[in-house]
């Protein structure tokens, strides 16, 4: 007879349940996106480390005496490969980028090296990787921003607290120096 007395609460409960499911899924998706963004950075960091031996060999052919630079860059690469946590990897990656810059700096003194096809290709590849790392960090930080916004603003904050996912994620700091190094004009 008075069917609506139980239909209306039921409808309200269903609607609330749907909203909860939506927000929980959204928080999980956004959090996964950050992890995916990190793996993008990781891939590029590894690619860069893989290019180092090749670069060292090429430069050695023209500039045998620059031993300190070679050992520095090789060490930086080893540190990079040993690094475990994202923070460590970022730090080691920055160090490797700095030592790579010194390799390219000494190349200025060896015109033959600079003119060699192999060297040019390596330079181009490393530059491509540098810009991809910069973009990957940008995507990472964009993803963190979206995630943090979702779990700190209402109503997302309620659901995040309910399911214990209300911890904001950290941004990767982008060093100004590193970003400028990407833009090398030929």
């Amino acid at each position, binding site marked *: 007879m008075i069917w609506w007395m139980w239909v209306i609460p039921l409808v309200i409960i269903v609607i609330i349940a749907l909203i909860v499911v939506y927000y929980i899924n959204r928080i999980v998706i956004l959090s996964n996106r950050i992890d995916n963004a990190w793996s993008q950075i990781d891939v590029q960091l590894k690619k860069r480390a893989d290019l180092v031996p090749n670069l060292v060999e090429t430069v050695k052919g023209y500039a045998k005496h620059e031993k300190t630079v070679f050992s520095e860059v090789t060490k930086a690469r080893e540190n990079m490969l040993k690094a475990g946590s994202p923070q460590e990897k970022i730090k080691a990656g920055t160090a490797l980028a700095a030592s790579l810059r010194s390799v390219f700096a000494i190349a200025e003194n060896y015109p033959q090296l600079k003119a060699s096809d192999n060297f040019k290709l390596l330079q181009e*590849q490393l530059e*491509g990787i540098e810009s991809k790392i*910069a973009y*990957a960090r940008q995507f990472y930080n964009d993803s963190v921003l979206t995630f943090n916004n979702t779990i700190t603003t209402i109503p997302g904050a309620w659901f995040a607290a309910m399911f214990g996912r209300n911890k904001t994620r950290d941004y990767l700091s982008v060093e100004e120096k590193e970003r400028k190094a990407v833009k090398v004009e030929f």
Partner: protein
Amino acid sequence: MEKVNIFDQVGKNKRNSVLLSFLVFVILFALIYFISEVFLPEVAFFMLIFALVFIVIDVYVSYNYGDKIVLKSVNAKPADERKHRYLIDTVEGLAIAAGIPKPNVYVMESNDINAFACGKDPKHASICVTTGLLENLKRDEIEGVIGHEMSHIRNYDVRFGTLVAVLVGLAAIVSYMFLRTIRFSNIRSENERKGGAIILIMFIIAILLAIIAPIVTRLVQAAISRRREFLADASGAELTRYPDGLANALEKIKKINEGKMNVSEAVSHLFISDPNRSPLDNLFATHPDIDSRIRILRAM
């Protein structure tokens, strides 16, 4: 300007794509039915089945292989791993920044500075640039253009745009084919006078179709919101973090381009700048005014 965000735009493009496919389906079906009912009533039922099969195949092919058809029609070649290294790296980098898979990269011959993206979704997408673009633009300008195209892919503008090019563009091709068949059917007509009258009527309809199809294409292209170009400019700049790159590129496009690229009118709305400038542009422009785009980018 109405406020739009990416999620609205994605939803709208998906809805528009379904709507367009449905409309083309209904119109083509009605057209084939009408023509066969009037001129070949004895085989009308057979024609209906033929129409159904034909249109289903047409929509399926347009949806799944539209990008291939478009790329083929402009004679685009895959980018060279070595020669176009910077282009490929830029596309890969901006795909990472946009959080989508890396699109295929193509290059087409033309002195004009131009580029377009096509495909059904971000997983199946391609970006094509002209040789003129590679020769005339500096690196940060190329980056700006690629950022713009990447936004089209992320927003699903490519799905709707490619469907418009192939589904609506096909109407023009079909009407030409229709015109050819009439000449052929002339030989078979037994009653000379009656046949002559039918041929005359069909001829008139064919001519009408041949005229209407390109106009419909134009109208649909003009109806594709110009807002989507502004939106792609803005979200492209958000990806590169450097709106001046695209603004400088647009300025060079304005200065250098002749607008006489050798591409079909049916695909022109896909390009970042109008590849065929024509007198019709005053009535139904397929692209927004380049000066206002530059102005908005400069103000970011």
